[in-house]
């Protein structure tokens, strides 16, 4: 990319010759590039108070002769540079070396463009501020669903987990303000604890450019970024209010930003969201509301040479869990699957009853950087996160208000990144990471913890190089090594330990000798060494064509649930069992992208192929009989898997007011060990959008949107039979069948009005599920229990000031 701006800094050495006469002094010097020390040719210098000009020669040198003793104000300019003023008290001959800089894009407000990538060779797509604002009262997962190749694994309609190419949870890294999120992300029904309103941009990295953040991004990376602010004295902000007919709720969001010419800046943001019970075309979803309170504060200093950024955010979410999804045993599940009738239907309410999830997430970070001339930039960051997750279930007696799951996860990391960029066409990033994590299963729940107490230590080191071969070709390569060690404290069922899993022989070293009736206390301890690597290539052709190729090697250690989970998963009516024998999974990923990016016609065709060895999956292995009745047992197991497909995006400007965009995602996931499809792979889907915009008429915009998701016909058959004692017969439990094809339409309109001097008011009116279609989605864990949402009218008012 062309660096449009320059920034001027100076350093000096002064040679003196004391001559006590007027107008005989010489002011000489040299102008060089700050970061690679090359001379800058053709820079203008103007001594303003005596109106003298000169230019630098081919060596970057300049000279003013016959100057009088004076205080001189000199302005230094170069093509596309901000001018810089220097004041010199001239009492002798002076030699000055002046440094100019070409990296000013980092200092200025970044204009969000679809082609400004995190890395030139990276295969990625972005959501800008405008798109994010339109999802202000929804979740990050909903917003990402609009990106081709990205889908979501939902639990009801408020808990939305993003999925890239069919992979989610621990296989996706979510980077929030340069902090990797740790919020019990292993769980299918654990949504990322992120306030979509706190960020200005989201990048979805499908290709290989992920090493800076970890070695385990098998699915990809989601990077949320704040905006960089211009160095000027200014105060600005915005407030947004939204209201929805479905759920009779919405949100209020406000943010205010103060920037100073000196480079200091500060931002405060707060958001409150509430919804009551949502509605399907035919009934209310009893207990499906949400309450969410979020706030963030940022403070920092930004200059070319050095700066810092401090950030703190709190996300406090309370999710109601659909009443109908609370089931006791497998016969209750059978009833739900067989009855199309929704089990619990009551009138609308804002009340959030049990079952529910209540999650509080704190995230704080401080980052500081310094540039070294002729070398590069060093960034050091410390961050911490505290995640407190409470899940409440329908319980008896005094326990009704006691959570069944109460976990506190504390994570803190110290990391550095050194960017060496003195060479024009080679840039190297290298860094180290230290991380300590502690999980505490808070006692007093009256339930054995799903995830035990553990301590985890991690250390990582990486190097990534980016080399510009010529004007049109870049390559990148990187390697990363991670060490991690996890030490847990867990009680096992004695029969399971000794007989079912044979751990007494396999892992006798974990036994502590403490046995309490039917339980045995153990200290499982594992260490992992992970190596990951990436290669990237981009070639630009004429006519705005470019070709990208990425290769990535990623390896992921098993997460705590894959190792340790051991108990009943209520809404799924199954017993889930993690195994200590689970090993790390290793993926080889190939991603390609052919892109055409011009103003009136463009496309992206991006095929990919992933070979994942020792892919960890949760599959049913049998049935266990308890006093509560029968439960299927699901165990984690490892197979080899392949996922491949293609994402296609297309846009065409029909005329200066009409614009069309479309996308298509095709995906196949195979369990190659057993030669069957993988579970929970998104079906083929495509979307279209036709927009009309009229800049003269209050920036009026009207869009018609469409999305079709085809039935997933490739799924593994994990159906089974269970005995129903009432009917006295074996009944078939069809948990595998996928949901039928559905198409949704929507309408989005917006207009901007000038309200006062510098502000504006934006009105938005949208309709989702325009034709009130009744449908279910395969990737919703509650597809057995209820339909998806009905038509929704949405009104948003945003004031910028």
């Amino acid at each position, binding site marked *: 990319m062309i660096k449009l701006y320059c920034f001027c800094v100076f350093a000096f050495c002064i040679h003196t010759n004391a001559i006590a006469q007027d107008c005989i002094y010489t002011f000489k010097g040299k102008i060089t590039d700050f970061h690679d020390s090359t001379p800058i040719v053709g820079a203008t210098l103007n001594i303003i108070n005596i109106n003298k000009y000169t230019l630098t020669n081919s060596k970057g040198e300049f000279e003013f002769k016959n100057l009088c003793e004076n205080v001189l104000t000199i302005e230094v300019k170069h093509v596309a540079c901000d001018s810089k003023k220097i004041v010199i008290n001239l009492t002798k001959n002076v030699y000055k070396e002046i440094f100019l800089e070409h990296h000013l894009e980092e200092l200025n407000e970044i204009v969000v463009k679809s082609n400004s990538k995190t890395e030139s060779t990276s295969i990625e797509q972005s959501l800008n501020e405008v798109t994010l604002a339109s999802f202000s009262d929804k979740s990050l997962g909903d917003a990402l669903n609009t990106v081709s190749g990205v889908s979501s694994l939902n639990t009801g309609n408020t808990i939305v987990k993003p999925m890239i190419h069919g992979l989610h949870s621990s296989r996706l890294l979510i980077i929030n303000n340069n902090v990797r999120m740790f919020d019990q992300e292993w769980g299918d029904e654990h949504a990322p604890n992120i306030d979509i309103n706190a960020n200005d941009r989201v990048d979805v990295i499908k290709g290989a450019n992920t090493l800076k953040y970890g070695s385990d991004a098998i699915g990809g990376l989601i990077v949320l970024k704040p905006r960089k602010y211009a160095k000027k004295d200014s105060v600005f902000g915005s407030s947004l209010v939204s209201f929805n007919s479905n759920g009779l709720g919405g949100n209020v969001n406000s943010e205010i930003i103060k920037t100073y010419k000196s480079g200091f800046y500060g931002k405060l943001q707060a958001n409150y969201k509430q919804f009551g019970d949502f509605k399907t075309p035919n009934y209310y979803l009893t207990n499906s509301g949400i309450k969410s309170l979020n706030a963030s504060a940022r403070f920092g200093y930004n200059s070319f040479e050095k700066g810092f950024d401090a950030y703190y955010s709190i996300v406090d979410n309370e999710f109601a869990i659909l009443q109908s999804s609370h089931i006791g045993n497998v016969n209750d599940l059978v009833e739900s699957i067989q009855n199309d009738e929704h089990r619990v239907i009551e009138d609308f309410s804002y009340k959030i009853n049990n079952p529910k999830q209540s999650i509080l997430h704190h995230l704080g970070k401080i980052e500081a950087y310094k540039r070294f001339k002729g070398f590069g930039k060093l960034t050091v960051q410390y961050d911490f996160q505290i995640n407190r997750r409470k899940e409440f279930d*329908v319980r008896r007696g005094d326990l009704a208000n006691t959570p069944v799951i109460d976990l506190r996860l504390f994570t803190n990391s110290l990391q550095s990144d050194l960017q060496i960029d003195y060479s024009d066409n080679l840039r190297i990033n290298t860094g180290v990471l230290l991380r300590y994590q502690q999980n505490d299963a808070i006692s007093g729940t009256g339930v054995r913890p799903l995830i035990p107490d553990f301590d985890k230590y991690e250390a990582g080191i990486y190097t990534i190089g980016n080399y510009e071969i010529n004007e049109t070709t870049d390559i990148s390569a990187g390697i990363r090594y991670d060490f991690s060690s996890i030490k847990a404290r867990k009680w096992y069922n004695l029969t399971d330990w000794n007989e079912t899993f044979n751990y007494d022989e396999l892992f006798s070293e974990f036994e502590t000798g403490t046995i309490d009736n039917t339980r045995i206390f153990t200290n499982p301890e594992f260490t992992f060494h992970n190596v990951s690597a990436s290669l990237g290539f981009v070639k630009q052709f004429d006519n705005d064509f470019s070709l990208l190729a990425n290769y990535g090697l990623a390896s992921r250690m098993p997460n705590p649930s894959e190792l340790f989970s051991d108990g009943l998963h209520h809404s799924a009516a199954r017993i889930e069992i993690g195994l200590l024998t689970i090993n790390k999974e290793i993926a080889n990923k190939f991603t390609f992208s052919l892109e055409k990016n011009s103003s009136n016609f463009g496309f992206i065709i991006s095929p990919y192929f992933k070979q994942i060895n020792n892919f960890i999956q949760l599959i049913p292995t049998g049935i266990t009989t308890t006093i509560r009745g029968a439960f299927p047992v699901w165990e984690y197991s490892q197979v080899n898997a392949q996922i491949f497909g293609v994402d296609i995006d297309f846009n065409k400007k029909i005329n200066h007011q009409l614009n069309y965009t479309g996308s298509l995602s095709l995906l196949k996931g195979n369990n190659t060990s057993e030669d069957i499809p993988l579970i929970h792979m998104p079906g083929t889907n495509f979307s279209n959008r036709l927009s009309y915009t009229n800049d003269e008429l209050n920036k009026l915009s009207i869009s018609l949107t469409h999305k079709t998701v085809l039935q997933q016909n490739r799924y593994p058959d994990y159906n089974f039979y269970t005995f129903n004692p009432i009917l006295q017969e074996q009944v078939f439990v069809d948990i595998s069948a996928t949901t039928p094809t559905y198409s949704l339409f929507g309408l989005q309109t917006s207009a901007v009005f000038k309200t006062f001097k510098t502000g504006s008011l934006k009105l938005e009116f949208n309709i989702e599920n325009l034709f009130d279609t009744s449908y279910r989605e395969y990737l919703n864990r509650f597809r057995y229990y209820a339909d998806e949402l009905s038509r929704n009218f949405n009104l948003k008012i945003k004031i910028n000031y």
Partner: protein
Amino acid sequence: MKNLKSIKMNTIKLLAIFFIATLTFSACSDDDHEDDDHDHEEELITTVTYTLTKGNDAVTLVSTDLDGLGGNDATFNISGPLTANTTYTGVIKLENATEDPAENITEEVEEEGDEHEFFYSSTVSGITINKTDTDTEGNPIGIETTLTTGAAGTGTLTIILKHEPTKPNDNTSTNAGGSTDVEVTFSVTVE
């Protein structure tokens, strides 16, 4: 400039202090939770006892699963055959035997009688079971019952406890909704 440099140095120092401090803090707090990690399964029902009495004749049906979910499967025992053409008085008892003394969970069910109901069904022809107790709303709970046998025969007797069923209902667990807290099936003989 100097100021900024010292800010920078201070920042780095501060970062280091933060990191060390939190490590120390969390290392210390380890002691707090090590001991109380062992949460008892407080809601666990390990034992279901259905006692049928007629004068001095008592038959007990017991299902136990002392290690709860996982581990060993539940066991089902019946003390002896039922007598044909007899009306028994039945009482059900739910216990958590992992506590010492065993916790009586029937009491909790009784207290929240309007949110619970037992359902009984048998494949032995002639067996009828009537619930004789009621909750605060006047609907049956099913802790106390009468069981009447008909002719001799063999088959099963199933007891289901539903939490938050629809009340009143048609006396079948299938249509009552709610979630299942207990589902036990015994083989019974009527002689």
